[in-house]
């Protein structure tokens, strides 16, 4: 357990010891703030029967910066170690592959959660500045942040997996983007082809945009929670094997 924490701490600090982490944090803050202000503009222009939280996370900006985050924060993880040869020094120290995978994964997840702090604060600021009741329920705010965390846990696992496949950060990033886009658009299969085929419920089940719609209304479903967490665990398991397999081959 000690080793895992040491790796986690080193990786987490790594995000803040280069300009990379700070640049990303500021860009994400800007995008989140922009989403909030354009959502308020939309509410001002016309009555919408949804909460502020729902509208913020259904702005066109959201999926753009959201899906672009994951390749950026994960592509470095193993690809860079492989390229620099430091994977060899790590795995010839008394470190288990599982500790390394989990340490890096959890560190990235922690950094990802830090990226959502500004957004959380922005929702609090509304109440502070206006003295009005916030135009959203605790349930929808909690639901959205729970889903953000759940999607993050799977998408970071996918990025970690892609990074373990190659020594090129670019390739790892491209694979991550590809897999995330495919995952996202699989959720639209039922929109394109309708519900009249046997596997339609499967596509509803994994549709990220439907999850977002439900969770941002405060409708939390345990099957969605289980879907993201079990898929994340499975992808991490594959990462572990991909790393070992790569060493065994080359």
């Amino acid at each position, binding site marked *: 357990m000690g080793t895992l924490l040491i790796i986690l701490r*080193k990786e987490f600090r790594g995000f803040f010891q280069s300009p990379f982490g700070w640049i990303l944090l500021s860009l994400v803050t800007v995008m989140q703030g922009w989403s909030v202000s354009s959502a308020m503009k939309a509410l001002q222009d016309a009555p919408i029967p949804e909460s502020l939280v729902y509208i913020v996370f259904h702005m066109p900006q959201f999926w753009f910066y959201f899906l672009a985050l994951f390749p950026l924060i994960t592509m470095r993880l193993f690809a860079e170690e492989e390229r620099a040869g430091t994977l060899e*020094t*790590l795995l*010839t*120290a*008394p470190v*288990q592959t599982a500790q390394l995978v989990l340490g890096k994964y959890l560190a990235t997840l922690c950094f990802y959660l830090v990226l959502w702090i500004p957004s959380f604060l922005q929702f609090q600021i509304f109440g502070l500045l206006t003295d009005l009741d916030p135009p959203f329920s605790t349930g929808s705010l909690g639901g959205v942040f729970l889903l953000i965390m759940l999607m993050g846990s799977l998408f970071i696992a996918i990025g970690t997996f892609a990074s373990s496949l190659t020594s090129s950060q670019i390739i790892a990033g491209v694979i991550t983007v590809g897999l995330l886009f495919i995952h996202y658009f699989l959720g639209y299969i039922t929109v394109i082809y309708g519900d009249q085929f046997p596997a339609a419920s499967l596509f509803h089940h994994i549709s990220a945009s439907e999850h977002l719609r439900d969770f941002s209304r405060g409708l939390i479903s345990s099957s969605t929670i289980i879907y993201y967490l079990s898929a994340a665990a499975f992808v991490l398991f594959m990462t572990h094997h991909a790393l070992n397999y790569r*060493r065994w*081959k*080359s």
Partner: protein
Amino acid sequence: MIKVDNLTKRFGRHSAVSGASFEAADGEVVGFLGPNGAGKTTTIRILTGFLPATSGTATVDGLDVSEHPLETRRRIGYLPESVPLYRDMRIREYLRFRGHIKGLRGDSLRRRMDEVIERCGLGDVRRKMIKTLSKGFRQRVGLADALIHDPPLLILDEPTNGLDPNQIRSIRNLIKELGESHTILLSTHILSEVEMICDKIVIIDGGTVLASDTPSNLVSTMRSAGRISVEVKADPERAREKMSALDQVKKVIHERNRGNWGEFSILVESGTDTRERLANLAREEGWPLRSLHRHAATLEDVFVELTRKD
């Protein structure tokens, strides 16, 4: 300390190591020699637990490296060939991280860090970023990392590769010093280095161990130990015939003519001295004799003889 038994590693159809066996006793400094691509790095990677073997066993301190990967890694200080480091870390920060993942904590870690920084001559640069260091200092940082958990066995893969002569000398002196208290497996293809530092030499090529002995034994048992050069003024054909007829002479080669003088190389059985009989022969035949010289074999001769492909 190290025992490698019939070790084989195949990558697809290509065998990088095939049936290699050798040993290193406690406290020995073993030179691990071989041409590029001989299987040195692969063998080392199996020993350090980075690669699994296809078959055969490797043990460190009596523990099989594939069955007890963590225990054996704790006993090994490893410096990989390319000296991979985190470029964006400072030296102390890097050594602290490496010490941590090798299980050192608190006071004992601080003490070990001070010790290895002192020992590897990193005192003046200890706060610098690794990416600003010269190659020689990076090598020292790698070595400091290998030493930090005070392992009884050091495995160094071409530690002087790419350094300038002064840096080579200082790293070599450091290794020599370390050899007094550690078992060292030193992979290199610089032969003078091995002659200076090592108690024992393992020569590997094509994935198999060709020789494993002390440097002096290797040199004295080699065929090249028995090469004699002669220069006589005589008819080359006749001279060759006559010299070949002597006992214990295996082969006579007519190298070249310099004016009337013919130069011959004579291979004789090792452990014999044929020079006196050659001198007598020249006198009897009335050949003027200008030089008669027995070559002292070097490790280079041994190495070339064992590993050349032609």
